[in-house]
């Protein structure tokens, strides 16, 4: 059953140096507050897993939290490149970064396999591309019924999944709606999980189409109002597109990034 705890305590208890950590959220509900708390707690040597490592992972990579990145699309959506990620890959700044690269369909299916408790997933993908030559977790499998060759991807089972959602009740049941991405799969695939939420309510009002993560699949729930900003929380606040554009200049320059990082360090969660 999920404990309702302050965010610093949740991160301190659930995220350890060397862990494989997935912060998911597909453009929507990206757990920025939790990512910044990981930076503040100086976690090191993390394997960061995320389909779309955008700003939050650029920030964590720049802060030296990660030694490996597992991903399918690394950019600043609609704006350009992730300059902290590029700097880490090209110049090992601040530390070297290893990558494991997939397509979106491959990553989504890896989470599905992880959540389903099976060792791999099958998809029509990767055929003819150069990705399998560089990624050990892509292989092929022969269909036992038709003999057809298909792509196989290894299940993803992170040590910790962190997601952000709109709200939870006092028992730690979490409700999440809008663009739901792979958050449900990431939580169900992981050994431990944390949901940060905009608010905790006495009773969850049903929302059509909402994903509900029962308190008994989560380890901790922490309130973090505005915790997805500058991404957005459907029904609470909109995406701050200007902040995504502004990140481009900050991330291009190590000094500007270090100044940004000091503001994060000084902020209490």
């Amino acid at each position, binding site marked *: 059953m999920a404990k309702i705890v302050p965010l610093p305590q949740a991160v301190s208890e659930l995220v350890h140096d060397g862990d494989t950590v997935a912060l998911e959220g*597909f*453009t*929507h509900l990206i757990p920025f507050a939790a990512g910044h708390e990981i930076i503040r707690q100086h976690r090191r040597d993390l394997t960061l897993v995320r*389909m*779309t490592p955008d700003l939050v992972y650029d920030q964590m990579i720049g802060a030296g939290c990660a030694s490996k990145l597992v*991903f*399918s*699309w*690394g*950019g600043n*959506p*609609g*704006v350009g*490149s*992730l300059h902290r*990620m*590029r700097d880490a*890959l*090209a110049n090992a700044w601040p530390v070297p970064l290893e990558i494991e*690269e*997939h*397509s*979106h*369909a491959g990553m*989504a*299916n890896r*989470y*599905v396999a992880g959540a389903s408790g099976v060792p791999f997933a099958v*998809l*029509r*993908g*990767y*055929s*003819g*591309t*150069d*990705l399998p030559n*560089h990624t050990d977790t892509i292989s092929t499998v022969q269909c036992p019924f038709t003999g*057809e*060759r298909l792509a196989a991807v290894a299940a993803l089972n992170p040590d910790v999944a962190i997601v952000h959602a709109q709200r939870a009740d006092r028992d730690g049941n979490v409700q999440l709606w*809008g*663009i*739901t*991405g*792979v958050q*449900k*799969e990431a939580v169900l695939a992981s050994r431990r999980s944390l949901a940060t939420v905009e608010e905790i309510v006495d009773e969850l009002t049903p929302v059509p*189409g909402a*994903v509900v993560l029962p308190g008994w699949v989560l380890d901790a729930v922490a309130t973090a109002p505005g915790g997805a900003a500058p991404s*957005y929380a*459907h029904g609470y606040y*909109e*995406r*701050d*597109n*200007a902040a*995504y*554009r502004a990140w481009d200049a900050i991330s291009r320059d190590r000094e500007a990034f270090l100044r940004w990082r000091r503001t994060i360090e000084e902020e209490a969660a």
Partner: protein
Amino acid sequence: MTGTAEPVAGTQQAPTWTADEMMSIAAARALRDGQVCFVGIGLPSTAANLARRLHAPRLVLVYESGTLDTKPAELPLSIGDGILADSALAVVGVPEIFNYWLQPGRIDVGFLSGAQVDRLGNINTTVIGEYDEPSVRLPGSGGAPEIAASCREVIVVMRHRMRAFVEQVDFVTSVGHGSGRGDRELLGLRGAGPVRVITDLGVLEPDPDTAELVLTALHQGVTVERVRAETGWPLQVAADLVFTAPPSTTELETLRGMRTVGEKETS
């Protein structure tokens, strides 16, 4: 890139347009009403939203964020902008959009862009140079490999530059026609692959026999020599080369009237 094209004979006040505007309009024209289109962000998103405002009001837009049949009033900055969810017929999870909607071949047109495209329509969005020591690290594949594999057909839209139109891509992120005609079938790819590459200079289409991209249309004011100078292989020109109709006033005004979400905040 911002050079204006030749004035059009016969119009009272000759409209001018940028090469990018011509490209977006040419790409929008390639989409037919009622088609189901899987849209990538950037140029494809602009063109698809333009088509829906012009001749294809029933064009179904699908984005990889899980938004089915979305009708945004403004252009999204990202594939997961809230405006796409708010105006969608339905929103589904990411595993579902790839496994149920894309993979079985339910999508008519995949609309893609890239950093490099080669003479056989293969697309690179991963690295320029060697994978382990790249000169440029690009965002990676995202949804593109499976969009290129599974849509009934693919339209590529990108700016025509020497560094982008290469003999052979440095990294095959998304398969076009592989190593030539028939290769897609051997690889088990079900869709037809790229049927057209629309650029700011003209249009290229695969040769029916070899699948090599051939220049089939020139935009107004562009010469074959200029396209050849920006193409990294000996570009063949179709015998029936045509000129793209210039943008109409309606097309230009509609394109210029489209705003990106949040644009006002920074401009």
